[in-house]
């Protein structure tokens, strides 16, 4: 099976799962890229961000049609998160892959616990 087909198949599975479970694709995409496609942690995380954009775009349109977006709060959050992201990516570049993996693993465990409790 070609590499492209594998990528598309993995993406499809992630899309289905994130829709069903109400979690973003990133927490599945990064481990899949690192484990099955042998992509390094830094590149997997950066690539995951690029995948998140179209997925979030489609979901926003769906939520928007249902009238479930508070624009004022959203804009205020966006200002903060854009500043935060530009700080976060610069820290990420300096953190060794092994530490990123450990931080990511802690995040996974927290997300998993939340999924069980809710």
């Amino acid at each position, binding site marked *: 099976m070609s*590499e*492209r087909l594998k990528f*598309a198949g*993995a*993406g*499809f599975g*992630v*899309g*289905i*799962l994130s*829709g*069903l479970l*109400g*979690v*973003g*694709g*990133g*927490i599945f*995409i*990064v*481990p899949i890229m690192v484990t099955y496609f042998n*992509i390094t942690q830094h*590149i997997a995380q*950066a*690539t*995951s*961000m*690029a*995948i*998140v954009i179209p*997925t979030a775009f489609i979901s*926003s349109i769906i939520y928007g049609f249902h009238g*479930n*977006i*508070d624009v004022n709060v959203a804009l*205020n*959050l*966006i*200002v*903060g*998160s*854009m*500043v*935060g*992201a*530009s700080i*976060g*990516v*610069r820290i990420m*570049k300096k953190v060794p892959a*092994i530490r*990123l*993996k450990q*931080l*990511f*693993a802690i995040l996974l465990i*927290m*997300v*998993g616990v939340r999924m*069980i409790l809710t």
Partner: protein
Amino acid sequence: MTMILLVFGIGLSTGILSGLLGIGGGVVLVPMMVFLLGIAQHTAQGISMLVIIPTSIVSVWYFYKEKLINYQAAAYMAGGAALGALISANFVQAVPASALKRIFGIFVILIGFRMIWATRKKDEDI
């Protein structure tokens, strides 16, 4: 004013975590909106999706300049993910989500512990 600062702070911490770990940030953003701002779960999820877009654009712009993106993986996985999300968004009501969530919760925790275990062994090698 305090409210604006609180919301800004929530956005800021979400952005840092998002950039640092390559995730959208909804995982932390949604619970903070629900618990700290008292926003309803469904509205919080909608807002979160909207916030994720400009946040990831900032990160992707930086990663593009730093040449950290695998474009083939990004294009094909994004295509697959968009199709999968569209399908599951339209059929999500038909599935008993809470049971599924618990099963995958355990699965996600196991992946987390496996990742920590793997890095521990590498530490010993170094």
